[in-house]
């Protein structure tokens, strides 16, 4: 083998190593904190505070049991589920029609509308929180599950619109037109042809809205007092709590969100126009 080709192989080897190293680094960046979180959650309180650590946790459930029985955790968890479910329903029932309209109709200001949908995310929530709290108190929505769900819907809605927009755009308009010529009204064609085809994507988009609400802490902390969601509750109560309780709380928050996002990842890629199918 000639020297030239060896050097080419040498170069590609360096490049390969660089890629592998970056991949390993990025994976560790994400996975190590999650590992620590999970490992400490499934260790006894003594082990969490002790040193040296064991690599494999002892799968002691004392920490997690203590956390789940901690006063207020149960109702906060329930509130979180309620708010997230409501957010999911609201953002899909408003976002999916908007996504459909964006994908199928030409109308004045369509481009502007698409940008504005994203711009809502550029508006800092803390700036909105105070006037919103005042307004909510006036109309009686303060400290309610519905009130918080409405705020979370405004956060989740842009994603719902964009994901469903890309879903509907992925379905050839001829399928709908064929249904019309075969005897369907616009609505029937949607129900019989389009809906079954976008259902998995709609479910994914709903789960994403759920996760947005599940993870949101700021609005939840400002707008609720009695009816705290889990993140708001943890923010308030865990400051002075023992270490093992913090780990358990963190894990309960992070794991479901991670699992859900992992389940719907291909639809999130689709939203940004990256083909990953």
């Amino acid at each position, binding site marked *: 083998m000639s020297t030239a080709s060896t050097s080419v192989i040498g170069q590609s080897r360096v490049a390969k190593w660089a890629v592998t190293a970056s991949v390993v680094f990025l994976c560790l960046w994400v996975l190590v904190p999650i590992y620590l979180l999970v490992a400490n959650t499934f260790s006894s309180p003594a082990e969490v505070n002790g040193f040296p650590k064991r690599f494999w946790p002892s799968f002691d459930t004392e920490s997690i049991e203590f956390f789940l029985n901690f006063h207020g955790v149960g109702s906060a968890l329930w509130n979180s589920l309620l708010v997230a479910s409501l957010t999911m329903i609201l953002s899909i029932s408003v976002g999916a029609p908007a996504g459909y309209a964006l994908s199928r109709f030409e109308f004045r200001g369509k481009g502007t509308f698409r940008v504005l949908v994203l711009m809502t995310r550029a508006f800092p929530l803390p700036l909105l929180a105070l006037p919103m709290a005042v307004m909510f108190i006036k109309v009686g929505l303060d400290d309610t599950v519905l009130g918080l769900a409405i705020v979370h819907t405004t956060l989740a809605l842009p994603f719902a619109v964009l994901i469903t927009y890309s879903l509907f755009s992925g379905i*050839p308009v*001829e*399928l709908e*037109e*064929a*249904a*019309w*010529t*075969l*005897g*369907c*009204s616009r609505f*029937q064609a949607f129900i*019989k*042809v389009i809906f*079954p*085809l976008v259902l998995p994507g709609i479910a994914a988009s709903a789960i994403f809205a759920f996760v947005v609400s599940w993870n949101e802490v700021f609005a939840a902390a400002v707008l609720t007092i009695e009816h705290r969601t889990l993140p708001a509750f943890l923010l308030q109560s865990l400051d002075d709590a023992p270490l093992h309780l913090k780990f358990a709380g963190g894990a309960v928050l992070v794991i479901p969100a991670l699992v859900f996002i992992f389940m719907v990842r291909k639809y999130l890629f689709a939203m940004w126009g990256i083909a990953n199918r």
Partner: protein
Amino acid sequence: MAEIKIQEVAKQFGKTHALHSVDLRIEDKEFLVLLGASGCGKTTLLRIVAGLETATTGEVWIGDRRVDHLAPKDRGIAMVFQNYAVFPHMTVFENIAFGLRMKKVHNAEIDKRVKRTAELMHIENLLARYSGQLSGGQRQRVAVARALATEPDVILMDEPLSNLDALLRMEMRTELKSILAQSQTTTIYVTHDQVEAMSMADRIAIMHQGHIVQATSPVEVYRNPATRFVGSFIGNPPMNFLPAKNLGNGVFEVGGTRFKGPDVNVDSLEFAIRPEDIVVGQGEMQGRIRVVEPLGSHIQASCEVNGTLFRVVVDSNSVIKTGDMLALEPTADRIRWFDADGKLVPV
């Protein structure tokens, strides 16, 4: 009775005129082909008849009903799309049954009609499959079966064969023609393929820049093109055109030769002749051969007559080569004349 009347239908997209006041009448049971290059407005016209597009002005009648204000489902039509539009989440059976279910036909009747249509289209063994498990040709058959099953007054086809490979297209062309002839359904068929148009149509309507330039039988379109455009669009190789100078009394000078033409009061016309209507080896007109293309059944020779490209078809046994001079004699009764606006001038 399902004749179609299109009256003064025009369509504008913003400032572009896709259709300029089109008038067309399609007889009951007629097979009409809308033929034109892409962007000529043929698909727009078809979609206006289907109700998928609304005309800016004008009326569409199917039978004795005015339909231009009706939804597609109320027009008594079925449509076959270029990309087939077979529903991917339904089996072939359910696809064909779809229109019948929408019409609330009884299950037993649906079963019977789906099976009958499937047999007609030779897809009876595919009924349990999904669209993803079918080839392009099979999907095409499902799409046609789905349209036929509802027994519509009118079938509209939008380039149904253009996504198939050449051999399959030829096969489907023949089959489709025989099936549609049997079904005796009024059909509008959109295509840009002149061979498809010539071979299938009862009548061809040629569209150009949003106008229907000629609507008549395939042979008539071929023999007597209404405009220079039609002559150059239909036929492969297309018509030859040469400038003709009026010498008076209906005599024209074309390529150094005199021809008897129409007795009109203009300085010049355009002389037109189809490549196969030229007798080679006799006559006064001379052409120098530039390219020789043997095609098996015949040889296509591109000559130069007075600096203008002039194609002739010669027998495949002829011994000709580039640079030869050819004597050319256009068959007198096949010569056509066009005026400065490109309109056919009768002799």
